[in-house]
């Protein structure tokens, strides 16, 4: 289960001495949680966040290993370093949680989110929407004479920016998946 991340040779300090744990500044952290794919496991994780008053900015979950019964959740949360440490330790206590990986703390990671945008309009606005979608490398996945559905992948910030641009051009509906993330490099975290 979860082990305290005690840095070698620095045991006279906090267990969580990878960074300043006394800071009162809130940080955004992306956590990957590898869980046993069993009924109720998502409810356990969400119940932990609501029961202990932690934030969830986004959450994605899907099975990643069918034969091994493993699912992976990616949760973006926000809190002071002390709260983030507690979240990780509390997640580690959940019996079907195999591993908790703090992708923000453990080095560079790639984060991607997928968004679907329905934009309706005619004339210049319609042309402008298509042009901007091209700049953002969004794909058109549905089209009528007066609407598009764009598919866009990227960081949450990129998708936010695209949404802002589409709003005056006839944005009707948005669906976003929330963040999925992996650490960079060859090493696997689980």
């Amino acid at each position, binding site marked *: *289960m979860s082990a*305290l991340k*005690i840095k070698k040779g620095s*045991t006279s300090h906090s*267990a969580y001495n990878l960074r300043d744990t006394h800071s009162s500044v809130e940080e955004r952290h992306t956590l990957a949680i590898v869980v046993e794919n069993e009924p*109720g496991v998502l409810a356990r994780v969400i119940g932990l966040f609501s029961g202990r008053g932690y934030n969830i900015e986004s959450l994605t979950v899907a099975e990643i290993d069918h034969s091994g019964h493993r699912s992976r959740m990616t949760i973006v949360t926000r809190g002071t370093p002390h709260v983030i440490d507690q979240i990780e330790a509390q997640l580690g*206590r959940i019996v079907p949680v195999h591993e908790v990986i703090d992708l923000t703390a453990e080095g560079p990671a790639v984060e991607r989110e997928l968004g679907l945008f329905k934009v309706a309009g005619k004339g210049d606005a319609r042309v402008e929407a298509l042009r901007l979608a091209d700049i953002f490398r969004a794909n058109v996945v549905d089209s009528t004479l007066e609407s598009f559905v764009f598919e866009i992948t990227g960081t949450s910030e990129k998708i936010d920016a695209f949404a802002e641009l589409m709003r005056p051009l006839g944005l009707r509906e948005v669906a976003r998946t929330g963040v999925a993330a992996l650490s960079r490099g060859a090493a696997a975290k689980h």
Partner: protein
Amino acid sequence: MTRKMAETREMTGAQMVVQSLRDQGVTTIFGYPGGAVLPIYDEIFQQSDIQHILVRHEQAAVHAAEGYARSTGRPGVALVTSGPGATNAVTGLTDALMDSIPIIVLTGQVPTFMIGSDAFQEADTVGITRPCTKHNWLVKETDKLSATIHEAFHVATSGRPGPVLIDIPKDVQFATGTYTPKGSRPSLYQPRLKGDAEAIAALVKAMEKAKKPVFYTGGGVINSGPAASRLLRDLVAATGFPITSTLMGLGAYPASGENWLGMLGMHGLYEANMAMHDCDLMINIGARFDDRITGRIDAFSPRSKKAHIDIDASSINKVIRVDIPILGDVAHVLEDLLAAWTARGGVTDREAVARWWDQIRDWRAIDCLRFEQSGPVIRPQYALSRLEVLTKAHDRYICTEVGQHQMWAAQYLGFDAPNRWMTSGGLGTMGYGFPASIGVQLAHPDALVINVAGEASWLMNMQEMGTAVQYRLPVKQFILNNERLGMVRQWQELLHGERYSHSWSESLPDFVKLAEAFGAKGIRCSDPETLDDAIMEMITHPGPVIFDCLVAKHENCFPMIPSGKAHNEMLLGEASTKGAIGAGGAVMV
């Protein structure tokens, strides 16, 4: 596999429940039947390896299982029906979660094909109990039932212990499947037991240098098992450091031991709290810096280096930031700690520690538990002091309810061994003690089992007199009757302008007649002169007794750290209570 073996491995779900419990070494379970568990009760009827104790309310089944578990170190088991049976178990589950007590609760559920249809006595049991169990399971296939039960025992007893629940639909109990024996599938849940060697080495160095050290121990020592208590005693004897304990940890180090400071915390002893406040090295062993212990966080032991040994990573740095965190099982860590410290010569700063003891002796001289029994009314402290003297030589187990009597029991009764003290610490469950005493007595049939109670708490599960009488359990219900909700009354006096809103009862039963109505013995005592004789009569009576001890009605429990105050701001008695709790403290519990 022979044909016969193959046949015996095929059985119904209900048979699997009984066979799994048998394989786990269970001999006693507590329960209450109902529609959704009838197949299991039918199997219980047809065997004699497992004794089923019929309680009178499902909450009591769970508390009795807790009492059984805490007094033996083995998991307790309760069996209840679906719907109301399961919801009545929730308080007990939460209690066991807060106090880390290993129990297994089996609940019946409506058949799988009716789940979600709002069937009769249907409740979303795994949903309701998810936050109040360490883990829970809904078993939808008979083939998976026995493996799940074995896994449940493993989860309940491994790492930080806790309650688990298995919800078993009725059709799963009827259907036939293949039995999976215990231990045939290794569990994925394997908490780390060994502490980090470097962290232990850091603690050894801190111990060598400490001038004002203190051991602060908790229920984790008792949960770790008898070896942990033994190692703790060795460590205290070898170092000569003073030791205090939380409410949950009483008995791990003997109250008669030389280095014992007494309990710490909100109603802890003056010398224990002062030592915590002024120490330069605090060694927390299996405690969790609960708010009853720390008082005001920002004034908690401001000048100490703090070490924390705990098997639960989430307990470390949760409330108090520590300097030396050691994640591991208490017994494993203490063994390594003792070895590492001895290997370096077993050094301590003897002169400084001797001066520290001089300071502690000065605090002790205040004699914070001193009281005088004068006049015709029994003071509760006196009643417990006499109970202590008259029962100390017995093979004795003490349970309590929750409130003033609980704190007085912790202060005035001494525990020299672990697993002898059963009290609801974290959740503070009124009504815990009586059913817990039933569980303890079943585990220790020849022992003297006493539930120190207040009359209000005791009434919350008084129906269990039926259980005590039916199974001839000679549990002694020692009720300190002040006709008040004493602790509520005390807080109203100190915090709410002496407006005693609903903190007394105007229609208490006659406890002697109540005992007799159940077929038990009742004893009433209101005279300090006859108290000893009355207590002796209670002890020597071979059956269950309700002892109605009429005590002073307005006694307050001291010492007390008012909420929102620090350890060195204790109230020692009535004279010091004026304006003691500020507005900031009043909002805290």
